């Protein structure tokens, strides 16, 4: 053991001596060479340690996101540069505000102009005093549940895009933040009954919303909105069918993208999240514009329309004017089932 140690010591000594000699040799070389700084400024290009190294500029030209391997569980952190965030920001700040502003204010402007020119569409023959069931209790419940959710979702959604410019100056930063926090909760939680409503609406009314022959004529006649003709229509006319399909397609789109946003990164990556937000908000502002038109024609735009969804019954003359084919169908059905006593009841 002792002998081994001694031998190791002498070996170490020999190495140290060799190192000293070598150091002296290199120092002598360095003395005869040009000044050190000049030498470093003109490095030996025969050895380039970065010849194969990754370069940020090249990587950015090749791909939209630079990512690598990280050591923490959060895989999203493995992306180090994603300039696409800048593009998404432009969408949120500029594009969405213009699209939303034009769609919603444009629709309001159109409706005001239409109301001023055409006024309320009246029941031409006056009320008959006899009514007819148009929507049963279940249909009305589903409609109003979905509609209430829609209004809250729309306002809380618009708040995210427009709130900090329109509402924040009025209520202050703290007030706006706490309102927005509650609006966010409402937006998240009311999405569930809203989605349920869209599904049930799809199932309960799909049978009457398949485009048909009468729709072509209805559209050709301008739906009775333009001019004074009243083309025949079944239970839902072509305009209502369009509203229906906007609700189904738009509702599905906002629900699907909304859940992607609500359960962030469960199924998609950062690019997918940005796209989901873009689809969600664009569809939503257009959806809102269409629903404003729907609310208009269902209330001040047409006499006798609101009661259809409020207490479920419409005046027979209203039905004759707007949905003659449906009225004929209903009358035939009633005559067939109980010829002596129809379901038409006198108004109280």
């Amino acid at each position: 053991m002792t002998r081994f140690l001694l031998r190791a010591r002498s070996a170490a000594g020999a190495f140290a001596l060799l190192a000293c000699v070598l150091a002296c040799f290199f120092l002598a070389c360095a003395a005869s060479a040009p000044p050190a700084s000049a030498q470093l400024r003109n490095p030996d290009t025969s050895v380039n340690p970065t010849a194969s190294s990754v370069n940020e500029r090249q990587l950015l030209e090749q791909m939209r996101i630079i990512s690598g391997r990280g050591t923490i569980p959060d895989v999203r952190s493995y992306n180090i540069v994603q300039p696409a965030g800048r593009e998404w920001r432009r969408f949120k700040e500029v594009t969405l505000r213009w699209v939303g502003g034009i769609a919603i204010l444009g629709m309001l402007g159109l409706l005001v102009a239409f109301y001023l020119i055409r006024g309320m569409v009246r029941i031409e023959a006056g009320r008959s005093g006899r009514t007819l069931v148009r929507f049963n209790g279940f249909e009305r419940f589903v409609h109003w549940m979905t509609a209430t959710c829609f209004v809250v979702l729309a306002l809380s959604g618009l708040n995210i895009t427009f709130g900090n410019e329109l509402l924040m100056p009025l209520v202050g930063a703290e007030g706006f933040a706490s309102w927005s926090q509650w609006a966010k909760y409402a937006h998240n939680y009311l999405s569930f009954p809203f989605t349920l409503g869209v599904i049930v609406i799809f199932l309960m009314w799909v049978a009457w919303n398949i485009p048909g022959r009468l729709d072509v004529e209805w559209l050709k006649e301008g739906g009775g909105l333009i001019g004074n003709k009243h083309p025949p229509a079944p239970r839902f006319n072509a305009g209502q069918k369009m509203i229906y399909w906007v609700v189904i397609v738009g509702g599905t789109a906002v629900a699907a993208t909304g859940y992607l946003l609500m359960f962030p990164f469960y199924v998609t990556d950062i690019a997918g999240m940005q796209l989901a937000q873009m689809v969600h908000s664009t569809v939503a502002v257009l959806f809102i514009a269409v629903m404003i038109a729907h609310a208009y024609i269902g209330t001040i735009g047409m006499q006798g329309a609101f009661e259809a969804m409020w207490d479920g019954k419409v005046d027979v003359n209203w039905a004759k004017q707007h949905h003659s084919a449906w009225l004929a169908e209903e009358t035939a059905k009633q005559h067939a089932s109980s010829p002596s006593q129809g379901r038409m009841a006198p108004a109280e």
Partner: protein
Amino acid sequence: MARMKFLCDADRCIECNACVTACKNENEVPWGINRRRVVTINDGKPGERSVSMACMHCTDAPCQAVCPTKAIYTTADGVVLHSKDLCIGCGYCFYACPFGAPQYPQVSNFGSRGKMDKCTYCAGGPEADGSKEEYEKYGANRLAEGKLPLCAEMCSTKSLLAGDGEVVADIYKERVATRGYGSGAWGWSTAYRETVES
């Protein structure tokens, strides 16, 4: 006024993760949140490089622009800070951020986000400098004490530089000129719309 920036010299980073640890400790960053992380590109292949990345405190910060509650602001030093009192956890800053800096504690099931947390350049938040509230919400305020972010201060190879943008750019340029190569000031073109010649 100085314009504070980070610069990671990837040719010096040895992926020791000391910056990550220093940040977590100095700011008592909550569990599950990493304000800084080290990512290795082309791992195990010739020319692999590691980059330490956190909030870059962008010029005209995208997160600040998209924040629905205007919770994010830029200080006179060019540091991007945020108010956890105003944040509603909508997640928009993460979509806009080119560097994946914003982090959210998960407050309930379904990935619902809490108040955003990110690198503060060791400069605290809107509360009074050095106050207890500030420390609890945002961590240390070293800048107010005349110190730089701890991640850069204790970087063993001086790969990660923090300080006035012009000064750190000059240091990096000097290095590139001296050694004859550089893989670029990572993130600078995206964060500051400028590059350091390499």
